[in-house]
């Protein structure tokens, strides 16, 4: 009797399973058609605190290099030039303080970046921030190096020149004093 019961059970459970799969066959699908019909950023489904591509607001960056030191994979490269007192055209920083350094290079290599968010935590002015942008793959690895500095190479050279001239002027002044 056990034998026949098993056969009946085998057949009925198979039928039951087939009914379930048939319901799913014609049921609603859960796939989101990214990127044709659905985009997580545009639809707002991506969490605002998600950790993706970093953005640096240069009006808030004073070149303190804390992000550089906090970075566990050394993906941030910063070059700074001191602001000379003789420089007339120095905009204030976004927190209203006087700028001490020109950041002529703030380069993040996203091929190295591990999105740990340590740099954003140490930043004293919240200039370095995580964004929700995640579609930035490239065919060339060099293109993943983003330079956030808003100074053009000419402007950077100009700032360097002003600082060196100020240094020389200072030196001469000291020699004259002696």
């Amino acid at each position, binding site marked *: 009797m056990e*034998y026949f019961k098993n*056969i009946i059970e085998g057949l009925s459970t*198979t039928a039951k399973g*087939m009914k379930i799969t048939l319901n799913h*066959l014609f049921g609603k699908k*859960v796939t989101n058609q990214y990127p044709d019909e659905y985009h997580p950023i545009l639809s707002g489904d991506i969490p605002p605190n998600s950790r993706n591509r970093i953005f640096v607001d240069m009006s808030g960056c004073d070149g303190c290099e804390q992000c550089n030191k906090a970075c566990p994979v050394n993906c941030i490269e910063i070059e700074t030039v001191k602001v000379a007192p003789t420089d007339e055209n120095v905009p204030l920083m976004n927190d209203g303080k006087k700028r001490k350094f020109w950041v002529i290079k703030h380069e993040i290599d996203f091929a190295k970046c591990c999105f740990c968010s340590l740099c954003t935590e140490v930043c004293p002015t919240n200039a370095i921030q995580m964004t929700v942008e995640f579609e930035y793959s490239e065919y060339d690895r060099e293109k993943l190096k983003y330079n956030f500095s808003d100074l053009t190479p000419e402007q950077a050279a100009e700032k360097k020149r002003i600082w060196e001239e100020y240094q020389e002027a200072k030196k001469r002044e000291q020699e004259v004093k002696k």
Partner: protein
Amino acid sequence: MENNFLYNLFGNNVWFYLITIAIPLVFVLIYALIAILGELKIASWIQDRLGPMRTGWKGVLQPIAEVVKLIQKEDIIPANANKALFNLAPYIMFTGAFAAYAAIPFSSQFVPAHLNIGLFYIFAVGAFAIIGIVMGGWASNNKYSLLGAMRAVSQMVSYEIPIAFALLSIAALAGTLDLQDIIKQQEGGIWNWFIFGGNGSLIKILFIPFTISLFLVHFTSSLAETNRIPFDIPEGESEIVAGYHTEYSGMKFAMFFFAEYANMFTVSALVTICFFGGWQSPFGDFLNSPIMQSVWFVSKAMFFVFVQIWLRWTLPRLRVDQLMFVSWKVLTPVAFVCFIALSYWGLIK
């Protein structure tokens, strides 16, 4: 010959033979592409996914992309493999699968080779697959391939017995092995199909349970013959990599792939012929012209291909001892009882 529309069209010349050979081949290739797409789509729909959507309209060109991919792949032969057998195995598999199409009656007006032992021929040619699998598994010189081949042999040899009993019952019921004759005896609508005991007096109601269980026995064993889930232990991915075709790549793997799909249609066609009236219209003489007959036949067989895919995504794989239990202790005795009952019915009807 006299019932072949190509023969009436061309007469007895070389064109007749060429086109007779070409039609099943073209049919198999087109059918395999459709079945691959069906497998992908049904698999994903059952899992609430959409499946391939980016090749062509809703992904309909995906099977063509798959075949192009398989053709482009490197053809690797393992250094210690037996090269002759290794290369021969996929061709034997495909030839065996394709040879069965010679006797499949697509319509009352078209069967590539009208054999009076068609049922026996298809059953015999189906056994070619075992040789191909053993050859591939042995020649690969790989323990997983060999394990898969041995599992395949034990499985397919065991499951041939219930199939043989099922086909024997049909032969006893119809009194012939000629597939066209078997189908012709099921004319007159859905009630006269062999799944409902064939045509005869109302006493056949007594025998309907036997025909239905015989159909279940035959269909279940057919699944084992084509190595599909729940009987896919010869290629059980989680246990022995890919079984007998572990070492195959590129076009040779595609041959195994095509052979599996061709076999799926063959066993579905056999189920259709033996139990569901072959090319007979389900409404008797209504819509029963030769062209509609081929439409009926292909759609019935495709329905059983669909059921095979459907089962694949429903059931888990059997264990080896469970597999043998099902074959020897369940299917064979049931088939034997049904054989005796249907032989009586064949006598008294």
